[in-house]
């Protein structure tokens, strides 16, 4: 589904990676690894279209993402270092906004269910500023449950999560991949899937 | 001599005329000099970085 061809990115005056190529078919998880500063986040932001690469092409179902623009954005779900959660809104409201932006007519019940599933039953009406760091992260992760995007791009999703949440997230990713979705993931820990294929990509292996 | 004084006095408007012309050429010449000096500084710095690299010191540590 996703095809990366000869990609190069620089940050400031430093070249992070050059001539990076890979394919990401459906039902596949791409695990991107590398030292800090090897360009993992940059790669993921480039895959989202947030960042224009210096050279090379990224194609989604055969078409360059720069031409698809908003159409491509509707196909992806990006989960960055920042949660993307408004502290003054409740979990319910946060997810409602996210769903409306996806033009996804969700019922309140679906949102409550998602929050319950991620272990936040009873917290849905509280402003997220009153939640702990891990709980805020869970609110953000609830988007994964609700999302119908075929491509997930997850930047260090496991940090600040307790073991229960890690297990849940792994289940979610596995389910997404098993359903024919694709995912790109950066994390320092090992990931395993029950079904589907895992590919690994090591960044910064060649000295810069 | 008188001609020079006449020229410099600009019919009594020396202050205005020379302030304007003086600032103009002072700035233009200053710009040229600054450009020349910054070129030298840059070349020196690039040269120093190149030398450090040849001594196999990781360049990042000297930025």
């Amino acid at each position, binding site marked *: 589904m996703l095809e990366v061809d000869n990609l190069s990115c620089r940050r400031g005056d430093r070249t992070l990676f050059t001539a990076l190529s890979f394919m990401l078919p459906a039902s596949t998880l791409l695990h991107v690894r590398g030292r800090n500063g090897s360009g993992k986040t940059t790669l993921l932001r480039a895959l989202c279209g947030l960042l224009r690469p210096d050279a090379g092409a990224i194609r989604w179902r055969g078409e360059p993402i720069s031409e698809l623009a908003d159409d491509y954005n509707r196909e992806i779900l990006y989960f960055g270092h920042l949660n993307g959660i408004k502290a003054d809104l409740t979990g319910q409201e946060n997810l409602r906004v996210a769903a409306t932006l996806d033009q996804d007519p969700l019922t309140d019940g679906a949102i409550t269910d998602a929050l319950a599933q991620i272990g936040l039953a009873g917290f849905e009406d509280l402003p997220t500023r009153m939640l702990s760091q891990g709980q805020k992260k869970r609110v953000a992760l609830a988007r994964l449950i609700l999302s119908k995007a075929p491509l997930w791009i997850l930047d260090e999703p496991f940090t600040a999560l307790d073991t229960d949440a890690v297990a849940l997230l792994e289940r979610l990713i596995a389910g997404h991949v098993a359903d024919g979705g694709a995912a790109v993931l950066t994390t320092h820990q090992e990931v395993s899937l029950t079904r589907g294929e895992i590919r690994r990509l090591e960044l910064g292996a060649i000295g810069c | 001599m008188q001609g020079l004084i006449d020229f410099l006095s600009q019919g009594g408007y020396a202050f205005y005329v020379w302030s304007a012309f003086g600032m103009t050429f002072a700035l233009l010449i200053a710009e040229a000099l600054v450009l020349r000096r910054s070129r030298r500084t840059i070349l020196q710095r690039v*040269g120093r970085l190149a030398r450090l690299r040849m001594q196999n010191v990781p360049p990042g540590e000297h930025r």
Partner: protein
Amino acid sequence: MKINWFKYAAPTAFYPLAGRLVPVLAVAAAALVLFALYWGFFETPERLGGTNPQKEYYRIIFIHVPAAWMSMWLYLVLAAWSAVGLVFNTRLSFMMTNAVAPTGAIFTFLALWTGAFWGRPSWGTYWDWDPRLTSELILFFLYIGFMALHSAIDDSRRADRAAALLAIVGLVMLPIIYWSINCPDPNNCAALHQRSSLTDIESNILTAMLVMTLGFWLYSFAAAFARLRNIILLREQDSAWVRTMVDAAGAGGPANAGGGDALDANRRGVSA
């Protein structure tokens, strides 16, 4: 002209070309400016105008008008390269905008400064909220804003693109700003004052003014290209061609006497 630029759109190719052009342009600019100065001071009458003539101080026109023209022309150049950079994503265009901006700001400042020293003897005040002077002041702010925004952003690509966008917004707003200053009362806009056109000016005065403009224009090219070379060097200092070039220059180019010291030291360091 355009075709030539295209060939030299890569900094690598443009660097040596600019290097050859800078001395030529600088010498030509100096010659033209000196000629214009001579003509302006010795071949022109001591009075400008008929019934109520301006005295010797009118000679400020020889730098004031060319500086004002250059300030506006360079902003157009700046905005044009910004647009080219944003559309075609060429790095050299952005470098060009940065090379032009300080020179443009200097000419804008000079137009203001010389305007003040012309205004004092002719209008009796250093500063008047005259539409043209005020617009020139706004133009100065736009230049300063461009440079301030560029230097406030660490990431060079974001800096280039953000400043370029600002330059274009400024270009769109400039006519509106000029118009609003020129005509603050829309009920009464017919009262727009007309200045004398170029053809009314005595031919010797016109000659000096136009030659000076040409001199300033060539000077702007020289300064912009010199600055462009610095910018290219700074931005590409990690690339192979800059390193080879620095090494080659260290082998004894008299043009790089200043850089030579460090480069000699460089070679000694290697042999030691």
